[in-house]
């Protein structure tokens, strides 16, 4: 369900683990305010690539090594965060 991630400072922190093709994250949908900064940390058990739609940011994932993407969201809408190799939806970013 929709949840407002508690901002640390002014940053929304989201952590995701991918193991055996299964996504483990606190929320399917993360709600953030327009203008907010989002920091996503992804740890995958295989090499992959993580992609944030809409803001078009990507980061390479090495197996077992956490990768961090930080960006600001400046437009309302719903944006998917997903892996490209395994085609998994990590979570949806709901920007209001």
């Amino acid at each position: 369900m929709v949840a407002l991630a508690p901002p640390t400072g002014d940053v929304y922190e989201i952590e995701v683990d991918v193991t055996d093709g299964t996504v483990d994250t606190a929320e399917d949908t993360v709600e953030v305010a327009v203008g907010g900064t989002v920091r996503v940390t992804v740890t995958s058990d295989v090499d992959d690539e993580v992609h944030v739609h809409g803001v078009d940011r990507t980061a390479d994932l090495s197996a077992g090594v956490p990768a961090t993407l930080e960006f600001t969201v400046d437009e309302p809408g719903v944006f998917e965060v997903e892996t490209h190799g395994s085609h998994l939806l990590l979570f949806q970013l709901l920007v209001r």
Partner: protein
Amino acid sequence: MTPTVVVAHGVGGRQDLPIPFGLAVAGAVTALVVSFLVLRVAWRRSRFRGDRSGRPLPVAVTRAADSPWTRWALRLFGLVAGAYVALGAVAGPDLATNPTAGVVYVLLWVGMVPLSLLFGPVWRLVNPLRTLHLLLCRAVRLDPAVGLRSLPAGAGLWPAAAWLAAFTWLELVAPDRATLPVIRAWFAVFVGVTALGAVVFGSRWFDHADPFEAYSSLVARLSWLGRRHDGRLVARNPLENLDVTPPWPGLTATVAVLLGSTMFDSASASPWWARWVQESGLPPTLAGTVGLLTAMLLVYLTFTLAVRWTAALAGSDRRGLSDLFAHSVVPIVVGYVSAHYLTLFVLEGQRTVVLLADPLGTGANWLGTAGLAENRWIAGQPTLVASIQVAAIVVGHVLGIVSAHDRAVRLFPAARPDCQLPLLVVMVCYTVGGLLLLFAA
């Protein structure tokens, strides 16, 4: 932005925010109240005069629209535009900057709706495949209307329904559907089968099987522009236009494919769908195919059952009545498609026009649109967008109810109005379902 990123979904990385709950409820209540008002207080004898209605436009307008010059100019435009897009699709690089996916999924598919509402069934006038068939027939001195065989009488719109299902499968389910090899492969098969169909059955094949012509012609049934029985172009109430929709076999299937696929598009964008697919362990393409077909089948079955029930209440045991009512789903489809694709069309449409300047990725600016800035104003107006979405769905619903009511009192003049109840309930379900999907997805 990394230039090698290929979009994994269709086009567009952005979806609209869910509509506010209050607005969804207000829309649903309005739809419900208006529906029962129509049933209780509306006319008891058919009002629509179909192709005899409308205010004639000046003779010069009809003459200009029907002149061979206009017809050939439109055909030429279709050929040139088709060749231009095909060039980018065949020779352009397979990158997110290639305009092909945007042209197919946004300009052609979504753009067909406003264009057909404004100008009528435009695709049959510009369809490059129809023109190529015509030119080839002229070259070998054959009548394009005559094929090797005549189309079976029961074919109706069934081939078009099948092709529409195939296209929405490409748009919503096919793996890597925004990439060139996938789009090329689909269109290679489509062009091949269409060519074969046109040779065997003549140019009627396009009327019965071309999904883009079928879509354009159906949406054009809600246009302000129509043609009277004597051929004169008229301005008319869209409901009158809708009333003269030919009730071909397969019309119900066609509208079910259109409504079901758009609803599936909403549902499959939701996190619960993605979660379900990931947890079910099914291959995503299989899950998507099953989901898409289920949505279409659900609309088809609920609608045919509702019509049968309505007919039974009216004391009629006529078969095949659902095609006589299916036109009333067209406004629901158009309302829902408008709500669902409005922002995508505005934002991705602009992006596609910019990308079209350089289809080969060589830095060219052939159309002069390369430097244009995209206007993203609408993306920052979620409240306005939500209001338009709900209004479109509710207006579509009301038009659908009114056209179904008029058809019911014409077909069953002696029956009590309550016989329409099953039909009305099913249409309310489509509308509330559409609102729910916009709220929850």
